[in-house]
């Protein structure tokens, strides 16, 4: 079902966005199912001993469901997702649901500070650069952004590690781990990853927000506001900001799923933090299908939710956006 076709039915806005999201999710789950399960490891022989007989083989295949037609298996998968019947992990035997509930909060706690700070600081710097466009502050910020964009995430992580976690540097923070039980220990373990995330995203964020702000500052109504004595602070924070909320929201909402999964993946595998990224990655390398199926479903869901939330936010902040 495509957007135009859905639109033609005249259903209310929210329902249309939901259906669009559903069609995306079907696509996501289909592709992932195809890749991971269909092309993935064949577990038949792992479960059998030596010299299996053909009846044994076909028995095991039947248990594993390999002999069913593709669409049926896909349908089962969707059913499992919807009923949250996620099964047990192949590698640890733990319930997938409990793995998710255990690791997801950790990943969020890991990634959230860096993400939020990266966007807030990026926004502020972008506003500064746009306001002083063409002057030295702007050029300085833009140069710094280009530098930031040219350094790989990995380099930043390793570099920060050397600087902050080793005796060759300041040695203030731990190299790996996540023994968090209270605020001080949280700060102890989250600071270096947060700094890394911040440094990586700051360059891109600043440039993006600057571009958005520049376009807004050039608008005619800013001239009117100046003609009526509006102070620069009020201009920027009340008027320019509110008018640029749509691209800002778009960017933030669409980077959430990305940052949460991919960002956490790298940070967790590097710092040995038991979050969802690490779990997923291990699942990939070991072919742990229940976990993979669940994670894909989860990410798809996150994306759809982000999509719907974005549209709701649009109409909430900008009166020009009307729900048809």
């Amino acid at each position: 079902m495509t957007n135009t076709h859905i639109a033609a039915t005249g259903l209310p806005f929210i329902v249309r966005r939901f259906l669009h999201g559903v069609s995306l999710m079907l696509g996501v789950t289909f592709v992932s199912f195809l890749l991971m399960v269909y092309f993935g490891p064949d577990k038949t022989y792992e479960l059998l001993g030596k010299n299996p007989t053909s009846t044994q083989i076909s028995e095991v295949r039947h248990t594993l469901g390999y002999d069913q037609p593709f669409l049926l298996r896909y349908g089962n998968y969707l059913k499992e997702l919807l009923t949250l019947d996620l099964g047990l992990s192949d590698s640890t035997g733990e319930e997938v649901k409990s793995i998710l509930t255990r690791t997801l909060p950790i990943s969020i706690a890991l990634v959230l500070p860096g993400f939020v700070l990266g966007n807030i600081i990026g926004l502020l710097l972008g506003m500064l650069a746009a306001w002083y466009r063409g002057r030295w502050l702007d050029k300085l910020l833009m140069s710094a952004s280009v530098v930031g964009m040219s350094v790989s995430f990995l380099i930043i992580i390793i570099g920060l590690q050397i600087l902050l976690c080793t005796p060759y540097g300041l040695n203030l923070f731990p190299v790996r781990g996540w023994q968090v039980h209270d605020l001080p220990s949280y700060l102890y373990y989250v600071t270096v990853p947060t700094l890394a995330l911040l440094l990586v995203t700051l360059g891109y964020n600043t440039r993006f927000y600057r571009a958005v702000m520049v376009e807004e500052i050039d608008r005619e109504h800013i001239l009117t506001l100046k003609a009526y004595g509006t102070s620069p602070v009020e201009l920027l924070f009340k008027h320019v900001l509110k008018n640029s909320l749509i691209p800002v929201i778009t960017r933030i909402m669409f980077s959430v799923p990305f940052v949460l999964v991919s960002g956490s993946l790298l940070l967790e595998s590097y710092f040995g933090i038991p979050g969802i990224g690490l779990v997923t990655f291990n699942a990939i390398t070991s072919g742990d299908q229940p976990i993979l199926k669940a994670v894909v479903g989860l990410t798809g869901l996150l994306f759809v939710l982000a999509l719907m939330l974005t549209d709701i936010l649009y109409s909430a902040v900008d009166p020009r956006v009307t729900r048809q």
Partner: protein
Amino acid sequence: MTDTALTTALNVQGLSVWIKTASGKQQIVDNISFSIKAGEATGLVGESGCGKTMTAFAILGMLPAAGATLESVAIEVNGRDISSLSSAQRRSVLGRDIAMIFQQPGTALDPVFTIGQQITAVHRRHNRSKKNKHRQAMLNSLAQVGFDQPDKIAAAYPHELSGGMRQLAMIAMATVCKPAVLIADEPSTALDSGTRALVLKQIKRLQTDHGTAILMVSHDLSVIRQSCENVMVMYCGRVLEKTDCQSLFTHARHPYSAGLIACIPQLNARSASGAKAIPGQVPAPSAFPPGCHFAPRCEHAASQCDLSVPGFLAENEQGNERGNERGVACFRPL
């Protein structure tokens, strides 16, 4: 009202603006001086690019582009020189003592705030101590420009109103603090003729009822004739003629002014030729001719006109009780 009739609401002396272009620093407004008394309306007329809008912005101290510089001997509103104020001080003047309305009200108003919010913000900025009076002042202002249901308009967003209504809302915003001077930059150009009349009527009302001095910037002579008592003709950054509207239309003294008036097609023209265009084109600032800027296109030009700049010759006509400045910048006026 009779007292204010003698006050000079706006006095501009020696205003010049330069901009930085790829080919260097260009002067786009050259030493403009004029004054407008309270309750008077003066038109500033000229073709696009002659610098009239830049003049308006310069009076407010707002130069849009980086690299533009302004110089003036004085810019006085009600006797107070605003050109020497700090930016914070000037901000307290803008919107309160002097206000401006713009050509495109659709883009001039902030799309994400309601009309009411925008007008109250202006009132609040300049009346910090009067709590709770802002909404009332805003509604009054809207009612005064002719809205029957000001509270409905106040709750609307700019995109929900028509062009004419937006312009009226802008006028309401400009006058909520009862400024002494109103600068109207092409206020009716973007409107159809019905709403145009309405808007111009409102501006006139400000002039007569509140004694506001009006500076109306336009390229449309007929609008100026309809709305203003006095007029200044501007070309390539210079004021070429200043007179009252009647005199301009019956006997323009500068060849350029005469040419502009001849451009207006007359409905009751006897000849079939219709409007007559001025030959040639308006030069760009980097290519301003030395001497009189209009000389290359002027039928009456002499060699003197190409070599030196004619100064502005003020003259006081006999029997002119107002004592307004009249004059023409020409070596060979008509």
